[in-house]
């Protein structure tokens, strides 16, 4: 395996597009384990994109906010200019050591159904800008994930920006996850809720859950039940019942199907109440 450190996006795209099977690495916290355990094919070329200045940091744009995919999870967790659900999701990842190396772009492209920034980004309807030697395209978060560890990223393609629209920055949001312990646990289920409130009434709602389907899932039925409801005295039970019908969990090493279905409701209730401020 060859290891090359890219200093610009152009250099990274040239390297990634120049050899079949090459892949980008940012923090490396997941890839290093996969390679050490022999769980994945060893790529002929690793292109380190973590140090590319254009891929780092968070900036305001005309229509929202742009997050550099190489921004560390530790930084995402502590920024006050990002929606709460995204910060809370970042905080739920790994340990301090992992969060200092891992990046939001790595979490996204790794596409594990239990990735804790995924359901927040889907709830926030983030857009992912993908670049390759032949150009760029923008893909909505909801369409980016196609299966466990599978995305629409093509060969030679790199995630170069994560965009969140102004409208999503204005609302209120919350994230909840459950794992087997508090520190360093991988999510058995996670949930993100975003609400736009107007005079105590829910004007718009976005609900997304992770680890209960092959990809992070928008629960549009639950969202529809929330719109138009008054926050005060909000009856969440019909929303939770609808959510339970919309998910498709499986039993695996981390949790059983029945358990996942049960706790999805509890996590959604907590996230909903926090986002609604009640």
């Amino acid at each position, binding site marked *: *395996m*060859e*290891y*090359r*450190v890219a200093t610009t996006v152009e250099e990274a795209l040239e390297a990634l597009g120049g050899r079949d099977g090459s892949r980008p*690495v940012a*923090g*490396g*916290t997941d890839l*290093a*384990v996969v390679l*050490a*355990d022999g769980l994945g094919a060893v790529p002929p070329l*690793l292109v*380190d994109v*973590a*140090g590319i200045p254009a891929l780092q940091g968070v900036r305001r744009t005309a229509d929202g906010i742009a997050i550099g995919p190489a921004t560390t999870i*530790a930084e995402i967790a502590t920024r006050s200019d990002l929606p709460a659900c995204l910060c809370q999701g970042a905080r739920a990842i*790994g*340990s*301090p*050591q*992992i969060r*200092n*190396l891992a990046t939001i772009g790595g979490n996204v492209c790794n596409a594990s159904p239990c990735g804790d920034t995924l359901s927040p980004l889907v709830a926030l309807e983030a857009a992912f800008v993908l670049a390759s030697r032949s150009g760029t395209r923008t893909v909505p978060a909801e369409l980016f994930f196609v299966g466990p560890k599978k995305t629409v990223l093509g060969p030679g393609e790199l995630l170069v920006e994560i965009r969140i629209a102004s409208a999503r920055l204005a609302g209120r949001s919350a994230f909840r996850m459950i794992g087997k312990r*508090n*520190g*360093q646990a991988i999510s058995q289920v996670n949930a993100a809720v975003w609400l736009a409130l107007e005079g105590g009434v829910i004007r718009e709602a976005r609900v997304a859950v992770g680890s209960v389907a092959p990809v992070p899932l928008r629960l549009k039925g639950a969202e529809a039940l929330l719109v138009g409801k008054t926050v005060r005295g909000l009856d969440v039970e019909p929303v939770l019942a609808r959510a339970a019908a919309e998910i498709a969990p499986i039993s695996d090493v981390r949790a059983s199907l029945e358990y996942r279905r049960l706790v999805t409701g509890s996590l959604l209730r907590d996230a909903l109440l926090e986002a609604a401020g009640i």
Partner: protein
Amino acid sequence: MKDETMRIEFTCNGKLTSVEARLDMRALDLLRDLLGLTGTKEGCGRGECGACTILLDDEPVNACLLYAAKLQGRRVQTIEGVAGADGSLDAVQEAFLEEGAVQCGYCTPGMVLSARALLRKNPKPDVPAIEEALSGNFCRCTGYGKIVRAVQSAAGAAQRAEGAVQRAEGAVQRAEGAVQRAAGKASS
């Protein structure tokens, strides 16, 4: 290209260090095998246990997950760089000894570095903050109680030292004031 090495230059425990290594080598192996800094331990080798914790630009990271390429131009502190040049222990190390926060000792280098990173940012951490800062460091002997107390005690010691400095500075200011007043009287 397979076994190609490159020169990696970084600051290691305050010293500019230059080493010829494969870029995809683990920083853990570079430190231990090429530089002989064996205080950094390998536990799980999978980023779970924190025995290999080092500080990279003051932040704790797992050296077992860190590609050597990522050390280029950075500042690294390992457990060897914590004590003074004369061998005098720092406040966290002293507190670990004092509180008996060490049994087999394998997790201790990582614990000490995570604790120092915490205290640098938050000199007065409460217990939840300490537990959060050490959540990536596993200890299979002590049950953590003594380790948490050691970090509290190190924070207290640092604050007492700070208080002593402030009191001393106050005394100096008062003495200077007295001298000035005395000088004023003498000239009038």
